[in-house]
C-alpha cells in the first residue's frame, strides 16, 4: 500500500463564469521514503497539487488516501490535527515566525502536539538544528539569518516531529544556485538518514538531478514520471 495515493484528482477554480482547471485528473502513488520532485512550468499546477496532498486545499473531485485512509469527510479541526501529526510544509520564503528564535520556531510543532516536556522539546529541537548545520544559531532571530539559513531552519522545523511526509513548494526559488544546492542536499541527506518522505516542487531544472523520481506536470496533468537509480 502506498503512503500517499492520489486518485484522479481534479481541481477547478471558478472566476465569475470562467473556470480555470489547475489539475485535470492526476493519478500518483508515493511510497514511504521517496525523494520526489515535481517539476513543470509556472502555472502547471505544482502548488495546487502540494496543497491538496497536504490537506490545505480540497480537490474538486477525486481523492487522496494516506496509508489507505481517505480524509475527505474530516472537519476543519480534524484536518488541522491531521496536519499537526503527520505533515510538514516548507514554503518558498518567509517560513519562520519573526518574533520567535530559531529554537522556538523549531519547537513550535512540538508545542502544539503537547506531548513533550520543555526539556524534551529543547533537546529534540537542538538536535535537529545541529543536523541541518545550524548548531550555535539556536538563539538567533530569523532576521539575523541568511535566506539559505532560514530554509534550513524550515527543514529542521519540518523534521522535528518526524512527519509522514515533508511537502516543500519551491523551497529554493528565492536562493542563489549554490545555496539552493546546499538546501536540496540537506533534504537529500535527511531523506537517506531518517527515511523521511520528501515531495518538493521546483521549476529549476538543475535541482531535479538530486531527485530519485521526477514527476513532470503540464497544464494540470502528469506528462512524465521518471525514476532514477
Amino acid at each position, binding site marked *: 500500500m502506498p503512503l500517499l495515493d492520489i486518485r484522479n484528482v481534479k481541481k477547478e477554480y471558478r472566476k465569475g463564469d470562467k473556470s480555470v482547471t489547475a489539475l485535470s485528473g492526476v493519478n500518483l502513488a508515493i511510497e514511504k521514503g521517496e525523494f520526489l520532485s515535481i517539476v513543470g512550468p509556472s502555472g502547471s499546477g505544482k502548488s495546487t497539487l502540494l*496543497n491538496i496532498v*497536504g490537506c*490545505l*486545499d480540497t480537490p474538486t473531485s477525486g481523492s487522496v488516501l494516506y496509508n489507505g485512509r481517505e480524509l475527505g469527510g474530516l472537519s*476543519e*479541526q480534524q484536518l*488541522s*490535527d*491531521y*496536519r*499537526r*501529526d503527520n*505533515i*510538514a*510544509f516548507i*514554503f518558498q*520564503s*518567509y*517560513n519562520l*515566525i*519573526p*518574533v*520567535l528564535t530559531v529554537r522556538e520556531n523549531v519547537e*513550535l*510543532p512540538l*508545542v*502544539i502536539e503537547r506531548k513533550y516536556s520543555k526539556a524534551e522539546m529543547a533537546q529534540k529541537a537542538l538536535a535537529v538544528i545541529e543536523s541541518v548545520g545550524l548548531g550555535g544559531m539556536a538563539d538567533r532571530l530569523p532576521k539575523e539569518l541568511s535566506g539559505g539559513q532560514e530554509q534550513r531552519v524550515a527543514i529542521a522545523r519540518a523534521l522535528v516531529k518526524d512527519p509522514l511526509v515533508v511537502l516543500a513548494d519551491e523551497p529554493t526559488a528565492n536562493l542563489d544556485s549554490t545555496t539552493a544546492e546546499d538546501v536540496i542536499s540537506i533534504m537529500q541527506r535527511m531523506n537517506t538518514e531518517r527515511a523521511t518522505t520528501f515531495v518538493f516542487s521546483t521549476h529549476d531544472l538543475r535541482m531535479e538531478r538530486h531527485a530519485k523520481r521526477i514527476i513532470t506536470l503540464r497544464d494540470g496533468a502528469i506528462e512524465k514520471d521518471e525514476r532514477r537509480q
Partner: protein
Amino acid sequence: MFSLIRLAMRNVGRNRRRSILAFVSVAISLSVIVFAQGFVSGFVQSFVKNATKNDAGHIRIAAKKFEERSRFLPVTYTVPRPDSIIRAIERDPAVAREIELVSPRITFGVLLSNNGLNKSALALAGDPEKEKNLLLLQKSILPGGRYLSGPRDLILGSALAKNLRYRVGDTVRMMTSGSDYALHLKKFVIVGLFSTGMNVFDDRMLQIGLSDAQDLLRTGDAVQQIIIMLKNYRNADMVANRIRAGISDTSICVTSWTHIGDTYTTVVLVTRIYEWIYVVIALLGAFIISNIMMMAVLERRKEIGILKSMGFRRSQVLIMFLVEGMALGFVGSLAGVALGGASVAIFHAYGLDLTAYMSRISIPLDNVLYPTIGAANIIYSVVLGTVLAALVSVAPARQAAGMNVVDAIKSV
C-alpha cells in the same frame, strides 16, 4: 496554551509604536473612568448625607411603632435613655470607626400662626452643637440674626418667615400635642432666619434645641430618633446590622437609609447610569485596539497561514489574537487606574470646592466634594478595560482564525 500566550506577548512587543498608542489610549480612558468614579462616589456621599440629614440620616434608631408610622412623625413612640444607647454604640470599635456623627433628635409638625396667617412647618430639634455639623444651618443665617445658643431660641426658614411676616426678635407661640396626647404651648424667640437656597429648608423648616422640644412635648429624657451619619454611606447596612445586634430592647429598631424613602433608588439609578457611561468611555479607549489588531491580522497573513499549515487550530489562532488584544487592554488599564487613582487621592486630600456653582444646583450637596475610591472601583475598572479590549479584538481574531490557508500563504 502556555506558548500561545508567550507568542501573543512577543507579538505585543513587535510593533512598539502601535502598542504604545493602544496603551496610551486605554490608559487615558481608564484614568478618566477612575477619576469619574471617585468624583461620583464623593458626589453620592455628599448627596446621601444631605438628602438624609434632615430625615433619617444614614442610620436611624427609633421605636418600632414610630418606624411604622414615621411619615406622620409621631412623638408618642420614643427611645428611652438615648444616652446609654449612644454610649454603647461608641464603645464598639467596629462601629465607632465608621461613625462621623451621632445626634439624638425629635422632629415634629407644627402649625404656626401670625397676624391671622397660618402655615404648617416642620420643627427639627437636636443638640445645636452637633447639628452644626449636620444641618449646617448656622452657615445660612441671614445678616441680623444668629444661630441657636440658649433655651427658647428658634431659627426659621426665610421664605416661611416671609409668608408669616415674622422677623428676627419676634416671639413665636408654638402649640402642639405632646407625647401625653395633651396640647402644650411654649414661647420661642426668633434669633435668626436661614436661607439655604433649598426649598425643603427655606419654605417649611425651623430648628430649636432638643431640651426645649423635650419640654414642649413632655417626652422627658427620651428622644424620637437617634440619627447616625457614617464616613461612608455604603457601609450603612453593615453598621446597622452590627448596632442592631447590640440592642436587646425589641421595641427599638435600627434602620439603614437604604430602607427609608427613595434616596436609595435615586442613588442606585445614578450609579447605574454612570456605569454605562464608564462602559462607553472604556469602549472609546479600547476601540483603537480593534484597529490595531485589524492591522496586525492583515500584516501577519502569511504567518497565520504558516501556523495553520503546521496544524494550529482555528481556536488556537483565535486565542492568540484575543490574548494579544487583552494584554494591551490590561496593561493600559493598570496604568490608567494608577493615574486616575493618584488624581483622586490628590483631590481627596484637598477637596473640590464647588461653592461657586452651588447656587445654581438645586440638589442638596456640601460645598466641598471629597472624591473617594475603593478597591472595588479599581478592580472593576481593570476588569472593564481588559474585558472590553478582549471584546473589541474578537472581530479581528475571528478574521485571523477563519483565514483560508492557501490564500494566506500566497500573500507576502
